[in-house]
């Protein structure tokens, strides 16, 4: 059953007196208990998508389209309902755990505040619950941790604390915005494993935002690739790696150095990523694309079904039949 549904979501932000489009029509469904990756480079507005879902856009943002959570219109929520929505329906974990915690309050204060205020628990009960939540994210000595301050914990432990806090309101959807980017690789693997386990044990839906296609594929059922404020490809994560359809996805997979072998030369994508507001009227990727034809610059491609994938490319079908060896075999 569909838990979250984005329909033709557009967001415009006022920047220095002028309007800048950051989302140019995003359609995305997340089913209950499903994990979806949202992958893109800087300026692709993947974080803005998450902020739109949790209604945390900067002041003055204009939102067009629909966001439905469990059938309910999120954009129409009043202040009180919004509080409930953020506490019990959709929780967010951000990139930098040090920015999420108050440095002069203990871990216990941080975890218990939410439990007392949104769940109405008395302090002693909140502390017991906080210890349980910490155990759920792999922190065994919770009692001791509750008395500690953020500076006494490593980045990986702090991110676990933030995830524990996100679980406090028993949410049904977790938005994880680059939750491991600031962490070491071995710590990253632990955090990702915790998210994956929580999702399975709690039936939690997950929107995992990352710049790393491989990382997203390791825990997401489906992956959406964003470019310049819109989704350019969406399909099952394993399929996306096996048979990418959009030239940008193909380019991203090919540009990444390979851990198995040094390549004579990396297949870099020429040029640089566009931000949504810089996008031309046609295909936003046209300038960097080796397969660009006149139609690509003239018409804005729509997200269309091509075998198992949704692809926003005029040339996808032709490319699929003419160059089957286009994608680089990177599936291990």
């Amino acid at each position, binding site marked *: 059953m569909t838990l979250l549904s984005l329909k033709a979501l557009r967001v415009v932000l006022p920047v220095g007196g002028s309007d800048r489009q950051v989302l140019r029509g995003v359609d995305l469904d997340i089913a209950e208990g499903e994990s979806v990756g949202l992958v893109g*480079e*800087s300026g692709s507005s993947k974080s803005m998508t998450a902020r739109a879902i949790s209604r945390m856009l900067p002041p003055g943002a204009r939102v067009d389209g629909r966001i439905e959570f469990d059938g309910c219109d999120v954009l129409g929520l009043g202040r009180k309902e919004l509080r409930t929505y953020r506490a019990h329906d959709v929780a967010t974990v951000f990139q930098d755990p040090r920015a999420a915690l108050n440095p002069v309050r203990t871990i216990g204060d941080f975890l218990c505040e939410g439990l007392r205020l949104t769940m109405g628990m008395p302090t002693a009960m909140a502390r017991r619950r906080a210890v349980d939540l910490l155990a759920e994210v792999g922190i065994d000595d919770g009692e001791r941790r509750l008395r500690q301050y953020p500076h006494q914990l490593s980045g990986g432990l702090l991110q676990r604390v933030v995830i524990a806090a996100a679980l406090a309101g028993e949410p049904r959807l977790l938005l994880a915005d680059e939750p491991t980017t600031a962490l070491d690789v071995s710590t990253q693997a632990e955090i990702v494993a915790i998210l994956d386990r929580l999702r399975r044990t709690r039936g939690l839906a997950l929107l995992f935002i990352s710049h790393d296609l491989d990382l997203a594929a*390791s*825990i997401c059922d489906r992956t959406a690739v964003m470019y310049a404020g819109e989704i350019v490809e969406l399909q099952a994560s394993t399929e996306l*790696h096996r048979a990418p359809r959009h030239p940008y996805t193909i380019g991203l997979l090919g540009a990444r150095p390979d*851990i198995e072998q040094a390549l004579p*030369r990396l297949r870099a994508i020429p040029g640089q990523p566009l931000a949504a507001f810089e996008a031309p009227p046609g295909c936003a990727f046209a300038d960097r694309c080796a397969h660009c034809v006149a139609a690509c610059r003239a018409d804005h491609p729509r997200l269309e079904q091509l075998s198992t994938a949704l692809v926003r490319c005029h040339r996808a079908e032709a490319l699929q039949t003419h160059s089957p060896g286009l994608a680089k075999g990177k599936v291990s």
Partner: protein
Amino acid sequence: MRLVEVDRLSKSFGDRLAVTDVSFTLEAGTTLAIVGESGSGKTTIARMLAGLETPTAGRIAVCGDDRSRPARRASERRDRARQLQIVFQDPYSSLDPRQSLSTCLDEVLRLHHPAMDRAARAARVAELASLTGLDGRQQSALPRELSGGQRQRVAIARALAAEPAVMLLDESVSALDVSVQAQILNLLADIRAATGVGYILISHDLAVVRQLSDRSLVLRHGRVVEHGPTSEVLDQPTHPYTRLLRDSVPRPGRRPARPANS
């Protein structure tokens, strides 16, 4: 030719050992990767190589010159800078916001190559800009007008302007978008082939290490746990820590392992 020789290098801050007994060498035209996670001491080693920290024990020689002691005179410091240049991780904070690419490179040329006249410097600036893939318009642009990838090209051009024998790449491609990171990695390989410069690549990204380096050194808690040709270190890691790093790299179709409790 041997560019760098580091022998039993140690550094302690108070009673804390940051780096213990680290030895390695770097040959011209090759790349040595220093791999490790936060707290492994890799940045401390970089800072000692650059002369920003003084070693507690051990010896560092770059181009045959000992630099274990601080430079005594400005000219000695300048000579050391000419031998070894750094490209930092964050191109947003490592460039002077008021300097365009041309003025930034011109300043380095005047300092390190005083014999060059204005015309020779201008020609060299243009040459460096084209080597790093920056066009004429970008030469007069201020850093704020450039993208992250372009800024990192400026930082590389600035390091090359001194014509160093060694370039220290301290997580220089980590902050870049994947599509741009590939451009910069190709560029670094081209520059190495064209100039014979040696790289010391400090990185936590094993795929980047595989792509650019010949030899690798894995650090943990300031000690070398593994050292050898990159292909051997990554294909047949002998130390459990290297295996852990290798296994932590995400791959599609592989579910993450159960987390270790800590």
